[in-house]
């Protein structure tokens, strides 16, 4: 393992020397050094991990972002990008020895271009604000994370965020046509543009989901989708999860492609009821939300099919909503579910894993068993259509040892996902939280290749270090990873932190 190189100055000194230069770039009110102010940035949406940033920079233009990043690269100071701070994998966990580059002031919608079916936005624009700006033209922005009114486009790009409607419309990566990025060396580079396809390597594809390790998105050209002629949302209540799962399988088998298929279990329904009084059918052990969109005739035919299949699977109540207000009422419970769990448990872990749809029933059974054995409650909310599970592991943080036991259950759920041929994250990303789980999914050679790719963008190793890929410091001795000195390090072209 590589020793940290000794430096003439301590990280603190290096940071303090940086502050006046950062102020020149971002202005006095664009740099935060006061300890109590910096502390409010110690976590993103995952508070389990916390670290007070050395400095917080609040740039307002792409040029400022690039200058800040360039300065960090030149001085060997790590930087961490942050959008709205709603991430759930601690991807924006700050560094005490680094600069937190926050895009929350870059909230301008540069252009809505309905003729080319796209919009150009700054990275701090909230996901839902794109839809708000496009709505008058009959368009919307399709990826819809549950936090869409808050989460920023820049964060969505870093995490390749999805949402309930990914089943039909795909993830962020399917909706970004062009990017301007500040590379980890501080260059502003444009990838793609308004045209739907660009020749050469798919660098946009590589950048999206790179969790801030390949730079910071400073502007995005996103695809706008025509608002569907009709949207119908069905809410079906079942006695238990098995019946709900059966309904999902038969809907997909029938050849219906809903915009979204979501399922919630009794515990998450209880939480949502407590939070937003969503008024789901009483006594439901599971509710299925199926949304259909498209031409009116198709939607009506599909809705009839879904109804029939749900009834056959044992649904005891089915509600249908076509008006925006009614649909919003159905979605309210689902969209608030994560935060709503705060009403029924003092603390909880939001897990995110993927399994093949056919394994859903079995995995849910295994999770129930895990929960019963450990005495730790697990609420299940998930995108049933694409097998993306969001188990919520509930515990009382005031009770000694409860957090560790919950983390064990949460980890065991990930093992279940891997064992069934799934993935350790569907949409929340790896961040810090799951970096050490990466070797459970990937062979050392895979990780090595990813690391080399990362270094090609970031030879100085300053861009969101210790996220996404496992590091010895973070994960202890991870077997099989970096047994040898990295070739770039050996050549003196890169440093390992």
């Amino acid at each position: 393992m590589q020793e940290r190189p000794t430096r003439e100055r301590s990280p603190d000194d290096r940071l303090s020397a940086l502050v006046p230069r950062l102020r020149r770039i971002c202005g006095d009110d664009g740099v935060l050094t006061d300890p109590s102010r910096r502390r409010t940035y110690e976590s993103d949406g995952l508070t389990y991990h916390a670290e007070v940033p050395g400095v917080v920079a609040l740039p307002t233009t792409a040029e400022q972002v690039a200058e800040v990043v360039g300065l960090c690269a030149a001085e060997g100071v790590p930087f961490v990008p942050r959008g709205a701070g709603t991430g759930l994998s601690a991807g924006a966990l700050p560094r005490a020895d680094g600069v937190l580059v926050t895009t929350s002031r870059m909230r301008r919608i540069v252009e809505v271009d309905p003729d080319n079916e796209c919009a150009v936005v700054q990275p701090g624009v909230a996901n839902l604000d794109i839809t708000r700006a496009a709505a008058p033209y009959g368009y919307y922005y399709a990826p819809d994370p549950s936090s869409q009114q808050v989460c920023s486009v820049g964060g969505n790009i870093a995490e390749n965020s999805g949402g309930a409607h990914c089943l039909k419309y795909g993830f962020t990566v399917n909706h970004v046509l062009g990017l301007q990025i500040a590379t980890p060396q501080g260059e502003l580079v444009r990838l793609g543009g308004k045209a739907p396809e660009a020749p050469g390597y798919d660098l946009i594809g590589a950048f999206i989901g790179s969790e801030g390790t390949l730079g910071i998105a400073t502007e995005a050209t996103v695809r706008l989708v025509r608002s569907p002629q009709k949207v119908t949302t069905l809410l079906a209540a079942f006695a238990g999860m098995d019946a709900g799962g059966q309904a999902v399988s038969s809907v997909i088998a029938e050849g219906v492609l809903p915009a979204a298929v979501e399922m919630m279990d009794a515990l998450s329904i209880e939480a949502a009821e407590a939070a937003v009084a969503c008024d789901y059918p009483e006594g439901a052990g599971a509710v299925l939300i199926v949304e259909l969109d498209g031409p009116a005739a198709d939607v009506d035919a599909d809705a009839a099919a879904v109804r029939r299949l749900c009834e056959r699977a044992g649904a005891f109540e089915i509600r249908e909503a076509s008006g925006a207000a009614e649909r919003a009422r159905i979605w309210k419970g689902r969209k608030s579910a994560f935060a709503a769990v705060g009403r029924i448990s003092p603390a909880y872990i939001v897990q995110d894993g993927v399994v093949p749809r056919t394994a859903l029933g079995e995995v849910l059974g295994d999770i129930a068993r895990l929960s019963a054995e450990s005495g730790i409650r697990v609420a299940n909310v998930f995108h049933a259509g694409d097998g993306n599970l969001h188990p919520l592991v509930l515990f009382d943080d005031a009770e000694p040892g409860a957090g560790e036991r919950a983390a064990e259950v949460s980890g065991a759920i990930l093992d279940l996902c891997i064992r069934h041929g799934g993935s350790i994250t569907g949409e929340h990303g790896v961040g810090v939280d799951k970096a050490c789980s990466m070797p459970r999914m990937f062979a050392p050679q895979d990780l090595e290749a990813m690391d080399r790719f990362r270094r090609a963008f970031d030879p100085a190793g300053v861009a969101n270090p210790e996220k996404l890929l496992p590091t010895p410091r973070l994960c202890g001795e991870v077997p099989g990873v970096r047994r040898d000195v990295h070739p770039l390090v050996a050549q003196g072209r890169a440093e390992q932190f």
Partner: protein
Amino acid sequence: MTESTENKENGERPFPDLLSDCVHCGFCLPTCPTYVLWGEEMDSPRGRIHLMGQAEEEGAFSDASVGHFDNCLGCLACVTACPSGVAYDALIETTRARVEDEHERPRGERLLRSAIFSLFPHRRRLELMRGPLRAYQASGLAEPLRKSGLLQRLSPSLAAMERMAPPIRSRVPSLPERVPAAGRRRAVVGMLTGCVQGAFFPQVNTATARVLAAEGCEVVVPQGQGCCGALSSHSGRAEEAARFAEATVRTFEQAGVDTVVVNSAGCGGTMKHYGRVLREAGHPRELVRRAEALSAKVVDFSEYLARLGPRAERHPLPITAAYHDACHLSHGQGVTAQPRDLLRAIPELEVADLPNPEICCGSAGVYNLLNPEPAADLGTRKADDVSSTQASLLVAGNPGCSLQIAATMRERGEEIAVAHTAQVLDASIRGLPPTALVPS
């Protein structure tokens, strides 16, 4: 009502417990006016809750954190947005009271605050200002003074006060102790006349009483009533607030009414949580219980009318009106549909909804006097939204909002008529022409 029982529970839960309800999801960020303006964590509800936690841990407020608490408008949009049910209203009120207790403010700030609070919550003193203010407005001095920028240089707060001052009309006769119901009596209700509302907008109180009477209510207007304590409570002056609250509780107990109708959102919001106000100031349990009993009787004017159902005939008012949600009505009391429904029931009246209805206009009690800059920025944003509706009348359920928005519109040369929901209903019931509300 579930809200009041919930708040009762919250009031009895310890502060750290209330803090721990926040799961840091960030859903509050986009509805927070200061986050909208500045895009920084410590000026968002999530960040402020974090700062409260820091103070709790360290046993003291950092100077920086006090600034961020002061920046909070107390609009409670975050309470509406929060899926975890964080009682930010209780948190910020307690925090403000602690700041006033424990934190030494610079001399200038202290003087400004005591000046404001020795004037505003006192209706008599406000009424004494009417004469000089009217003379000043008639003198033609206002225009050159504003242009000179002298006041702005002297004190931005004073300049804000000058800008916001409502046009003083001729004196409206004060309401009698009892206003009889028109026709068969359906109910007996008490009515709060308030301090600012009473002194500067007596015509709103008159309209309120007239509409209630027309709908069959006998209206009891206790003569000894003063400020309800809302302004003080929102600024952390816990004891002053509790004194006002206690007096108001006694006044309405003596009036012997089962319903207390309030036409000012800020007042209603506070009066619905009197238990908390008194508990915060350490008042005895018995008094807290009585305060809670009064809170249960408090109802907003529009909320009450919607519940009562219309009886008086509505005459047409061919006007396009924009309805502005006063924060302490929408976020503080959950009243959004009722005033719109009441207005839409008026023939030929068109009600336009403002874009960004959840964002505060920047008035926020005395906030626009204490923090004139962000208040003015928010006022401008709200004025943009009001302009976009092309309405000729702005309707709101709170005097402060009307003052703030009207002043901002006036400065932009887009003068707009403002009215309280009660005045619109009053004009319709009395069959007045639209010019009664919108001078042509």
